[in-house]
């Protein structure tokens, strides 16, 4: 049998790009998917003043925590869909049977997911800060901490998604698995914003967030790949 | 006429930024609402004409 082998480095890069393209297409095809995490983010930010108190001073104190919790929940909410549809329509089996390294595809999926949620949330954070009366000094800290923190959320969330994808209903179980892992990110992230608001140095927190991200970037794709193989072979 | 000079009119008693920003936004949004359907119409008509021609060609 003839067999072309144009694989190797170039093939891997191609695969990464192709997967990103496909994921973007999947999101763009239904435009609502694209804006929805943002709108969810906006709405959580709206619910808080409504549920708690509309007082600007009080809200300003809450703001860093609420924005971070909203980002966390928005990521968590969108996480379950990451592999589920691939599982249900059989694409995941094809993925696992591909001769290409699995973690490339997985990484591409997570990166695209992050761009659609985390990055978008980061860009929207100033608006949220305004709605919650976050002092202007806090905004750069908020954006930086989100920029460093949300990729970690996506990476860690993907591990949970991969572990629960074989279950008939993983939607809420995934939050159970993942939330404990999210807590460090939440703590460092909201502390960074609080530090920025009060004028303290926030470099330490950002460094910690960066370290978490580096760790997640190295370990998560492997963990996700392994989790997917386990889930599918049930 | 409640303004005496052009500069007074532009500054709007110190509130120029707000007023002009509002009216600018208003103009943009209203104009967009009138122009976008126009553009859509042109595109739609062109598209449908192309479709018709294509179908006629097939027949």
């Amino acid at each position, binding site marked *: 049998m003839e067999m072309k082998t144009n694989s190797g480095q170039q093939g891997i890069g191609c695969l990464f790009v192709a997967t990103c393209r496909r994921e973007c297409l999947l999101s763009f095809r239904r435009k609502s998917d694209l804006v929805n995490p943002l709108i969810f983010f906006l709405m959580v930010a709206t619910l808080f003043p409504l549920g708690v108190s509309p007082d600007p001073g009080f809200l300003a104190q809450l703001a860093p925590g609420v924005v971070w919790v909203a980002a966390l929940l928005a990521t968590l909410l969108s996480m379950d869909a990451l592999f589920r549809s691939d599982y249900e329509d059989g694409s995941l089996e094809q993925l696992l049977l591909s001769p290409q390294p699995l973690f490339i595809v997985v990484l591409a999926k997570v990166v695209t997911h992050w761009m659609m949620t985390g990055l978008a949330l980061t860009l929207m954070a100033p608006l949220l800060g305004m709605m919650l009366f976050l002092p202007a000094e806090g905004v750069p800290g908020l954006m930086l901490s989100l920029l460093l923190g949300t990729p970690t959320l996506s990476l860690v969330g993907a591990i949970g998604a991969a572990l629960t994808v074989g279950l008939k209903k993983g939607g809420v179980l995934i939050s159970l698995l993942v939330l404990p892992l999210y807590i460090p990110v939440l703590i460092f992230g909201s502390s960074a914003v609080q530090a920025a608001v009060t004028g303290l140095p926030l470099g330490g927190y950002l460094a910690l967030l960066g370290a978490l991200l580096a760790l997640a970037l190295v370990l998560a794709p492997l963990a996700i790949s392994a989790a997917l193989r386990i889930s599918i072979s049930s | 006429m*409640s*303004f005496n000079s052009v500069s007074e009119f532009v500054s*709007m008693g110190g509130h120029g930024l*707000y007023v002009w920003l509002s*009216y600018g936004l*208003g103009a943009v*949004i209203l104009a967009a609402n009138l122009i976008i359907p126009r553009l859509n119409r042109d595109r739609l008509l062109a598209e449908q004409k192309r479709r018709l021609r294509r179908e006629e060609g097939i027949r």
Partner: protein
Amino acid sequence: MAEKKWIPRWFYQLASPRWCYQITGKLLPWFMGTTLLLLLGGTVWALLFAPADYQQGNSFRIIYLHVPAAILAQSAYMLMAVAGAVGLIWKMKVADMVLKSAAPIGASMAVLALLTGAIWGKPTWGSWWVWDARLTSMLILFFLYLGVMALNSAIENESTAAQASAVLALVGLVNIPIIKYSVEWWNTLHQPATFTLTEKPAMPVEMWLPLLVMVIGFYCFFAVSLMQRLRNEIIWRERRTGWVRELLNKQ
């Protein structure tokens, strides 16, 4: 189908997309002219001739955009929901199209009201945004619009999309007074209504007359934009019928 005698003839005619396309084609230039006249005249009046407010100074002039936009945003929702009900009950295609066309206009008006309000809030209240009842309920109205639009665009099949968004619009309509009152009891800071049916306006005539002009101008603008979108929608949905083919061939 049993003929219902008490429904006027134009109602049935309205149900015909073709008739609707033709009549809007005739009305459009007139409305366009009126709109431009009213809006330009109103703006000049508002910016140049209306007196400044003794408290708020010239920032008061924002009212001439803000209030018409806010009023229109609410009316458009009402129209949308009514169109939805008509579409659901009488299965009228044109009503479906009206619903779909009205949503983006209403949403943009809500945005305009929110933006002008926010801009106005900076000099008056000292901050861009406060969690006040009016503001909040306008924000929620905007979300309702977004919901209708998102649902409409998420469903592939046109008539299914129209029906689904009609249900949503109706549910939202029931909810609008509830939202309004809940938010109002929750927190109030904003101006009470200027135009009410029972009382005379509290503003002097020189102030509210241009406002009236602008409000009417905005309604005309709404009619124009709606008709334009509606006509596009009709062509799209009826693209396979004979009369649209003829129309396309003629041009």
